[in-house]
């Protein structure tokens, strides 16, 4: 029996086990949406913006480990997904984005709603296809999922001209994929692994840096075995959070620009770094020339381009982290590499650093954002999926919540996309309807995809958005305060709506905490109502994220919390020529 291209597309997606498509309709995808009208196995989740659809597919993928799928129309529908695609690309997230395209015969004509989305997304997809013939659809879907989910994963875009969704052909889904030009290296080089094992047993001051690769490859168990057996302290990149239990004795928390003092010091003083599934981003290394000056570096990564891109590497191992760690664990065991008399001295030294500068803050009469994050951790006992927006909120969420399991931390690392967290949380909640899902948000970021409240309300998703409302684009304001003489150029968010009323207007629940004693009750209430909820935490406006490695500094050159700002300090909001008084203005207005 012959099927239309649209039917073939949906049948193919079923073969790939797709349950949800996040999408938005339009002229060039009408035929596909028409097939979805009767479809029972796949549900199309209508977001309220294509960017929301892309981030939701991404959040679904990060939470579940499966490829997220997103379907939009040509032109503006397609271009609206670009930020979402770039976000997924930077963080190696498997995603398949289906875009409608004008009919083949009109391509290149500047037709209505035509955009060269294949050209536009070439540098931010792992691969992309323009399918010109109906008989290529099934094979293309098969290849797209294969490419998106294997090797170093990433988003793949498939552009579908309208005429091929109508045209008919026989449907046969290919059994396997054969791409002569794409064969990721999975197995690590045994000799190199042996070298690594040797170096580890000889090292006096080793540190593991675990990155997103640990999570993607599903090797948290192997990492734990490795670290525990050889008593290796573990720090994580932001993408690696959850790859090693944050409450483990050997955990140093996050490293880098807003990493812990002890993680940064340990890395700086280390004589051997074991970098696992990470890529030495500049937010991690600080000034590269002074990064870990005394350390040998072992670098395990599936992507050869990550190795020696930013830092020197002594023992490179290209391969899948899970595969490599398994062999490494076995090698270390066989060679008795675990006993090391120096380890205690090193771990004691790290304990001293922990005592010297623990992660802390002081909770006074105004809500400190860190306090909110800690309370969420306490109340959920860490058993929740935490998505975040970008800015200070993201850093506090990374610092003050201890992620115990992989795929519980969902945050835009590489691109740092404001507006990511809320739709990503929606995607995560679809993947795990019974888990507690939070979006830790800023008052700026949440306004970038606030329309997705409709999606959450419509599907009654109990996503809980904790807005750390500081009335500012806080992270940018922090840089202005520290490095631009407090010239708060366009970072004051006067004009922000009342988030409680916004939530209510959409049919969601809105809650507000004005003072520290309200915080716990608001969080508990949000969990209790089991509905989409906005929690507006009226926070200290001047709170900053510490420690901080200033731009261009080495990671051991951290700034710490100075004595608190004098209460009542005036903040000049240039945008509306208004003076705000630090801390209490909004509380008085009852907002």
């Amino acid at each position, binding site marked *: 029996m012959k099927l239309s291209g649209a039917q073939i597309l949906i049948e193919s997606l079923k073969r790939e086990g797709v349950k949800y498509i996040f999408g938005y309709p339009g002229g060039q995808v009408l035929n596909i949406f028409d097939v979805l009208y009767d479809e029972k196995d796949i549900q199309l989740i209508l977001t309220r913006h294509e960017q929301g659809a892309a981030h939701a597919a991404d959040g679904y993928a990060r939470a579940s480990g499966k490829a997220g799928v997103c379907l939009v129309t040509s032109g503006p529908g397609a271009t609206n997904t670009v930020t979402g695609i770039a976000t997924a690309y930077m963080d190696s997230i498997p995603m398949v984005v289906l875009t409608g395209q004008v009919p083949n015969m009109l391509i290149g004509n500047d037709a209505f709603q035509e955009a060269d989305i294949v050209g536009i997304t070439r540098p931010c997809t792992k691969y992309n296809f323009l399918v010109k013939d109906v008989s290529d659809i099934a094979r293309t879907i098969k290849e797209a999922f294969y490419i998106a989910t294997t090797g170093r994963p990433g988003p793949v875009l498939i552009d579908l001209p309208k005429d091929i969704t109508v045209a008919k052909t026989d449907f046969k889904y290919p059994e396997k994929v054969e791409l002569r030009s794409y064969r990721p290296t999975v197995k690590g080089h045994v000799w190199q692994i042996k070298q690594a094992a040797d170096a580890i047993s000889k090292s006096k001051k080793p540190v593991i840096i675990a990155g997103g690769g640990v999570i993607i490859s599903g090797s948290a168990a192997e990492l734990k075995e490795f670290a525990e057996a050889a008593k290796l302290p573990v720090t994580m990149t932001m993408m690696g959070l959850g790859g090693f239990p944050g409450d483990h004795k050997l955990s140093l928390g996050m490293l880098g620009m807003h990493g812990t003092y002890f993680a940064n010091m340990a890395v700086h003083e280390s004589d051997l770094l074991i970098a696992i599934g990470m890529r030495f981003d500049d937010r991690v290394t600080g000034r590269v020339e002074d990064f870990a000056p005394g350390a040998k570096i072992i670098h395990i990564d599936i992507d050869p*381009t990550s190795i*020696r891109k930013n830092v020197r590497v002594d023992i490179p191992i290209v391969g899948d982290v899970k595969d490599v760690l398994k062999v490494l664990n076995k090698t270390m065991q066989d060679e008795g590499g675990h006993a090391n008399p120096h380890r205690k001295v090193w771990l004691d030294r790290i304990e001293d650093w922990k005592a010297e500068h623990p992660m802390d803050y002081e909770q006074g009469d105004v809500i400190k954002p860190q306090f909110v994050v800690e309370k969420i951790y306490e109340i959920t006992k860490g058993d929740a999926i935490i998505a975040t927006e970008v800015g200070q909120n993201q850093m506090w969420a990374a610092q003050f919540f201890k992620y115990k399991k992989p795929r519980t931390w969902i945050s835009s690392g590489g691109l740092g996309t404001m507006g990511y967290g809320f739709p990503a949380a929606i995607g995560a909640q679809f993947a795990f309807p019974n888990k507690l899902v939070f979006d830790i948000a800023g008052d700026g970021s949440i306004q970038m995809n606030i329309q997705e409240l409709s999606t959450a309300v419509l599907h009654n998703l109990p996503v809980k958005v904790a807005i750390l409302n500081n009335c500012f684009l806080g992270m940018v304001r922090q840089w202005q305060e520290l490095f631009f003489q407090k010239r708060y150029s366009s970072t004051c968010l006067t004009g922000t709506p009342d988030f409680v009323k916004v939530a209510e207007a959409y049919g969601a629940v809105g809650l507000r905490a004005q003072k520290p004693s309200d915080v716990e009750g608001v969080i508990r209430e949000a969990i209790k109502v089991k509905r989409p909820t906005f929690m507006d935490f009226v926070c200290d406006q001047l709170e900053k994220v510490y420690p901080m490695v200033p731009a261009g500094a080495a990671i051991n050159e951290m700034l710490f919390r100075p004595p608190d700002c004098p209460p009542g300090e005036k903040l000049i909001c240039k945008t509306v020529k208004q003076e705000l008084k630090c801390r209490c203005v909004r509380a008085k207005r009852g907002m």
Partner: protein
Amino acid sequence: MRHIISVMVENKFGVLSRVSGLFSGRGYNIESISVGQTLDPTVSQMTIVTSGDDNIIEQITKQLNKLIDVIKVTDLTEFDHVEREMMLIKVQPRVEHRAETLRVAEIFRGVIVDSSAKTYTIQVTGDDKKLEAIIDLLRPLGIKEVVRTGKVAIAREAKS
């Protein structure tokens, strides 16, 4: 240092822009690039001349390899290889220089592929040195236009 990299790719539309986009997006320079089909019509061969320190060249070859459509990358600079480039030069000499022009072409084993009342078009093939040399000699005689193909290169077989 200058490197000559041979890249075997799938013969599909868009592949050239993936490769050139990689270079422009990452700030690598391309001195020349040439593309053509191989014996297998589904495969094309690109020859890219680029330059950079060892780290950059390592990144370039790795990044090329990472492209889904790239089948094989060889840095020919590491091997004994032959490089050639073809050039068409249109010369417009004064009457008294016409004979000299033809003599220069002959010395370089150039071929006259077109001539008019006022011009000769000479085709020459060779390595950089040879092409630069003929340009130097023809310049005083009056060059109107030069078009070059960019380099192609191939590894030499071991002689035994």
